[in-house]
């Protein structure tokens, strides 16, 4: 028994890749997930970013806008830029921000909202409701904002609510006596919210609700299907990377070990020809893998694949090309299969976590979203989301295609450079 333990410990100590896999990998992943999902590191930027459009320009709407801006859970902007220097947003501009994925939610206080409030209070009457323009891809932000609108409406304007209530009372229940009016006047200032905090609370506000219409600005033909496309792309891209790296490792390391690489290099095929050939093979396999994934999504989960074919095709070719090239880089970098296995597992899982394959990036903090842009997955997923959620035309995919295309060329050049070690010594 002691001998067996001794053999095991010696092997473990001398195989650094295995050692790293056993001890370092779990710590790396724990840290990544703690940062991605915990979000404690950057509370300032984990607030939900929203746009607020005040079409009403009444005292009530101004109070609500100010309340939303003071709300700690939100970062509300009323102008086209976050600094507030540009002109106020109109409804179309706010909707565009949501459609383009810059913000998950926009709040529109429509014209006539204040007038209706004066007549009926928040809840009653037939006045126009507040509109919440949202992106269905984000299931959480609209719900949070919806709740906060209720809170802000109640806490930002309890005095106005009370005034409205008193008017209603006087209209239907008869006028107040001078003593009653004096009592109300004395009590009213206490309902006014403290400046800036928006935190005043009042038992009088309880039990009422502001009418809010949630408007899906994405207008997708199949919401469930669109959501499925996120998972198809996320999981598809992650496994594409695994299979590309595995395939490339098989292509280069196994061939080098078996001697077929030497034999191939002694034919008319040079190293460049060999790498390009292998890259095309890996890219075709990756394309097929993504296509099968999306077809499964189409027939089993109703993913709207056929109505988005051009965008899907362009993104799939770009993603597969870059993934295959990355696979070649890793395979040319690693000296052994074990190294490739260990290193690529760490890299792919890290990129998948940061790049949104496991957890949507739009739900991460702003800092994590920016870090995610350094990963391959983020650009690939952004492209697929543009196609299936934002209904983007093919030309609108140019930033993603540019990044993935550049990455492909850089990866191929890097792989060619690293592959020199297999050429004549």
């Amino acid at each position, binding site marked *: 028994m002691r001998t067996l333990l001794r053999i095991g410990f010696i092997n473990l100590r001398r195989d650094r890749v295995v050692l790293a896999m056993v001890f370092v990998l779990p710590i790396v992943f724990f840290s990544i997930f703690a940062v991605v999902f915990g979000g404690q590191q950057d509370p300032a930027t984990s607030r939900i970013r929203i746009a607020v459009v005040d079409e009403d320009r009444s005292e009530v709407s101004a109070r609500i806008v100010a309340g939303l801006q003071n709300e700690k859970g939100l970062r509300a902007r009323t102008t086209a830029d976050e600094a507030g220097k540009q002109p106020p947003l109109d409804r179309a501009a706010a909707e565009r921000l949501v459609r383009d994925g810059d913000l998950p939610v926009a709040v529109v206080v429509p014209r006539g909202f204040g007038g209706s409030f004066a007549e009926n209070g928040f809840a009653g009457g037939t006045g126009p409701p507040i509109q919440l323009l949202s992106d269905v891809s984000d299931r959480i932000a609209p719900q949070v904002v919806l709740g906060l609108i209720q809170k802000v409406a109640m806490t930002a304007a309890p005095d106005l609510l009370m005034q409205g209530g008193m008017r209603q009372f006087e209209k239907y229940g008869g006028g107040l006596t001078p003593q009653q009016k004096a009592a109300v006047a004395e009590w009213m200032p206490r309902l006014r919210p403290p400046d800036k905090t928006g935190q005043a609370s009042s038992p009088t506000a309880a039990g009422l609700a502001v009418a809010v219409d949630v408007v899906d600005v994405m207008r997708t033909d199949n919401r469930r299907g669109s959501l499925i496309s996120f998972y198809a792309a996320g999981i598809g891209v992650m496994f594409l990377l695994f299979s590309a790296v595995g395939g490339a490792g098989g292509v280069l390391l196994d061939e080098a070990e*078996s*001697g*077929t690489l*030497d*034999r*191939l*290099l*002694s*034919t*008319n*095929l*040079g190293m460049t020809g060999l790498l390009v050939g292998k890259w095309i093979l890996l890219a075709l396999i990756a394309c097929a893998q993504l296509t099968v994934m999306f077809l499964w999504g189409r027939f089993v989960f109703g993913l709207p694949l056929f109505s988005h074919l051009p965008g899907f095709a362009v993104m799939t070719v770009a993603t597969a090309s870059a993934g295959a090239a990355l696979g070649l880089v890793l395979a040319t970098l690693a000296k052994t299969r074990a190294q490739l296995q260990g290193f690529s597992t760490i890299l792919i899982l890290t990129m998948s976590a940061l790049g949104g394959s496991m957890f949507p990036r739009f739900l991460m903090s702003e800092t994590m979203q920016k870090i995610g842009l350094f990963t391959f997955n983020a650009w690939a997923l952004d492209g697929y989301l543009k196609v299936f959620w934002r209904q983007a035309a093919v030309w609108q995919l140019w930033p993603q295609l540019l990044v993935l295309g550049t990455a492909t060329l850089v990866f191929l050049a890097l792989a060619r450079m690293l592959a020199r070690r297999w*050429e*004549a*010594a």
Partner: protein
Amino acid sequence: MSSRVLSVDNARKRFGQAVALDGASLELQQGELLALLGPNGAGKTTLIRAIAGRVRLDGGEITLFDRAVDGRHTPPELGIVPQDVALYPLLTARENLEVFGSLHGLAGPALSKQVAWALELTALADRARAPVKDFSGGMRRRLNIACGILHAPRVVLLDEPTVGVDPQSRDRIYDVLADLARSGVSLLLTTHHLEEAEARCSRTVIIDHGRVIAAGTLSELVEQTVGRYRLVTLRLDASVPDDSAVALRVNGEEITVDAADARIVKARMRDVAADLPPLLERIRLAGRSVEDVEVRGPSLQSVFIHLTGRELRE
């Protein structure tokens, strides 16, 4: 009339501090089957890889058909049979041949014809459609050779082509190589097997520490090194008496007593018929009788030991 097809002149190569080739030179003639013999680490594989354009020399020159080999590309006249069985195990024999044939520029009927020829030559025609993973070691070795000669190269380099195969398969492989040599192909092979080099190759080059230390036919090598002596080994019924060692000399040649077994006596004799009877008589006079006698002619083994001071497998 043979003509030179390959020449290596003063080849030098270092890998870090290790000297792999230290001025090695050799020539290969047309239709010749040349054995490159040497212990492990002598520089055989480096030399083969340099000729194949897979190792860049630090110094010296390699010319193939009077054109310099640049160390970057494998010349098209060359066929390479690597030491490893460099085949795709999931592909059939025919598919492997087709793959490597087309990478050598063969296509269409020419490819089919060469594949059929290579399968026939290596006696694998009946297993053409079987995946290589199901092949025996000897069959894999033969297919490994077939893939290297498929494009009809004029010079073939073989690195340990018979390693790890049984004697029958080894004979079959050498039959293939002899066929090729007869058809005018020049072959240079590295081997550990002295008997193979001795029996099957027309000439032998012995390399050690990156240098060629002898080259020629077996008789030339014998003349150059050990001479025309026979080695006579006698096993006695008891140990040779300590004081008889000086007395037991034949024609001035010292008789050696085996260090491990004092009953075994070895002597080098130029003329066995004349020199052996006096030795037997002296043994009788010393009170010993002979249980066994072995007479061996000069071999590559003795040449090799003479030149390198060690057995080939050290």
